[in-house]
């Protein structure tokens, strides 16, 4: 039946299945009514400033056009569905699967290729300040996505307050650097440890929670941290933020045009002309290295017992208990390690910006990071990269669309959730295989 050519099938279909015109018209009418109800206020009424206040102006022609478009569109969709009942959805499924398969094979080779491209990128002629800055931003989010992927993707603990760890990393780095004069590389591990410690502190009270309840508590935790940062004035300087955070140095070589007495700079050491791009590129490489460390660590830990226990915990906690897995320790390590990477990214953010304030750590950041993880496909490393490039890079590219940018962003997210509800790359490869050339231990990452 499947090999019957398209044309005869279409000519037979209306004969076999009488076209239910009434139902089609009813469906279109309902859609039109909804469009009218929504459009009445959203499109139909417009406020204009006139001398002496605001005036309400009607745009009924616009409403009429919108309703007509909706009715016509709905009519077309309904008619098409009546003509070819399952064909459309089956084909869409097939197309989605084919894309997924393509991406899967692509992903195998894309990883190393992407790394090479990322390393080479600043050396190419396109690398002006603007693009390197965007790439740095995208890499920061990729790193945050990979960090959150440990908690959400692997351990299945829905964390809506991930930005708290980002903030803790940024503030602990900034405070250490400002008050104790610690350099970036010395303070970085401490910032990560502070965040990890906080991750454990958050982990303890929420051990018994799952799903929605956990999401609410972590959401509240994220807000608590932000409010503490805002109000603990004599430490965090509240809304004024912390400024003059030292920039990272290249093995002790500063990136500055005119350094202080006795400090050697990067450009004099290598005999280059001073360029502000040097520091931007250096920061790019720092975050690239941090992100790759995160990725390597995650890929590696997935093949270790703790990583498998995280995934098992996500699948079934009771079964885990029956197999002797300590759920407390397992969850806490997931929180701690996810938080640690958030802390690293936060420290990088602080040194890159040179200034931090609680405004950088609002809930929308958590939401964006979570969106990256969910859109990419939970647990998928390369999916996070694609989603981060689309979400962060995409919003930058779409900057010209101005206020329609968020609309396009939202539409893209809805589209992905409709067609690939489990994320762009929801495929999961087993961490250990039995049937393989030279079966045995796990393959190297």
């Amino acid at each position: 039946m499947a090999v019957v050519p398209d044309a005869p099938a279409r000519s037979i279909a209306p004969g076999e299945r009488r076209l239910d015109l009434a139902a089609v018209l009813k469906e279109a009418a309902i859609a039109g009514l909804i469009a009218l109800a929504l459009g009445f206020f959203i499109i139909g009424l417009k406020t204009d400033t006139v001398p002496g206040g605001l005036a309400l102006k009607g745009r009924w022609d616009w409403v009429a056009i919108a309703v007509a478009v909706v009715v016509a569109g709905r009519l077309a969709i309904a008619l098409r569905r009546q003509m070819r009942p399952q064909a459309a959805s089956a084909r869409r499924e097939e197309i989605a699967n084919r894309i997924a398969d393509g991406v899967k094979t692509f992903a195998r080779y894309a990883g190393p290729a992407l790394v090479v491209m990322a390393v080479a990128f600043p050396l190419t002629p396109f690398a002006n300040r603007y693009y390197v800055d965007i790439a740095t931003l995208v890499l920061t989010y990729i790193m945050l996505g990979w960090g959150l992927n440990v908690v959400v993707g692997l351990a299945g603990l829905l964390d809506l307050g991930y930005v708290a760890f980002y903030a803790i990393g940024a503030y602990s780095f900034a405070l250490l650097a400002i008050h104790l004069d610690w350099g970036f590389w010395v303070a970085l591990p401490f910032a990560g440890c502070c965040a990890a410690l906080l991750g454990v502190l958050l982990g303890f009270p929420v051990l018994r929670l799952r799903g929605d309840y956990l999401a609410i508590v972590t959401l509240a935790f994220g807000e608590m941290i932000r409010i503490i940062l805002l109000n603990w004035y004599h430490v965090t300087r509240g809304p004024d933020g912390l400024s003059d955070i030292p920039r990272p140095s290249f093995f002790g070589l500063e990136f500055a045009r005119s350094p202080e007495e006795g400090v050697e700079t990067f450009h004099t050491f290598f005999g280059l002309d001073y360029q502000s791009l040097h520091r931007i590129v250096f920061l790019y490489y720092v975050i690239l290295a941090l992100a790759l460390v995160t990725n390597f660590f995650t890929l590696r830990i997935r093949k270790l017992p703790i990583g498998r226990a995280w995934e098992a915990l996500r699948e079934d906690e009771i079964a885990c208990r029956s197999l002797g897995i300590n759920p407390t320790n397992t969850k806490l390590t997931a929180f701690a390690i996810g938080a640690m990477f958030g802390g690293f990214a936060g420290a990088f953010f602080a040194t890159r910006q040179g200034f931090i304030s609680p405004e950088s750590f609002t809930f929308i950041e958590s939401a964006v990071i979570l969106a990256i993880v969910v859109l990419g496909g939970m647990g998928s490393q390369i999916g996070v990269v694609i989603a981060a490039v689309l979400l962060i890079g995409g919003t930058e590219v779409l900057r010209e669309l101005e206020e329609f940018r968020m609309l396009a962003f939202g539409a893209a997210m809805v589209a992905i959730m409709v067609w690939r509800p489990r994320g762009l790359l929801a495929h999961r490869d087993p961490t250990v295989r039995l049937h393989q050339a030279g079966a045995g231990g796990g393959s190297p990452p």
Partner: protein
Amino acid sequence: MSAAWTMETAGAGDWPAAPSGAGALLSVEHLTMRFGGLIAVEDVSFVAGKSEITAIIGPNGAGKTTVFNCLTGFYKPTVGRLALDRGERAFLLERMDDFRIAQHARVARTFQNIRLFPAMSVLENLIVAQHNRLMRASGFTVAGLIGFGGYRAAEREAVELARHWLAKVGLIAAADTNAGGLPYGAQRRLEIARAMCTRPVLLCLDEPAAGLNPRETAELSDLVVSIRDQERIGVLLIEHDMGVVMGIADHIIVLDYGRKISDGTPEAVRADPTVVKAYLGEDDPDLPDPPGGRDGGGG
């Protein structure tokens, strides 16, 4: 390691001896479990021997699964002592957390409604079961991250144990597929294999034959018998299929309304009038067998 739940075997001389003389593995004394006003299990005592299949049967709601949940630590019993004697060490299960019972006392279980890790592969399910052993081999992740050789060898050993059990339950070919995609009967077998990969001394099977066809039921009986005979571990079995129970159990305990009403060999239990009464609702001298007893060998 000498925590409050362990005790020296020598100091525990007041335990009742196992009826068969094989040496008691598990002794349950005066187990009572109350949920508010509801008494699910009341004053149940029994003994399960080493390398013996002990079946717990009874009508629906008799408290069988509650006994399992107490034994595996998912419930804390209201009253009672649950002592597991592993020879070199003894454990008081009622004082232990669920995962510690699996880890230290080595009691493994399966669930009435299958609880696999559906999105993980069949092999991974069995590797996760060997978590604690591998955790130690990976130096609690630190050494494993750096990549010491010890972990590689331990993982290979874990894969070999998994392969052994996959072969036993006939799932070698499906090893790299997702556990959630297996047919129902295969999922039941995989759950038993996963429990065995924890290297238990006592295996608790909660209705392993539920939903299986007659051929699968017969295979399951063979599997349980071979576990008893080859691994020489104790098996506790909750089952409604009387063909399986009468065919393979060495010792049967009958519960009704949370109380133990009978305890003995299959022949003795089958002839026990209180058991017949519990199953049929009245004492009928013309019916010496419980109704399930005529199901035959599951064929």
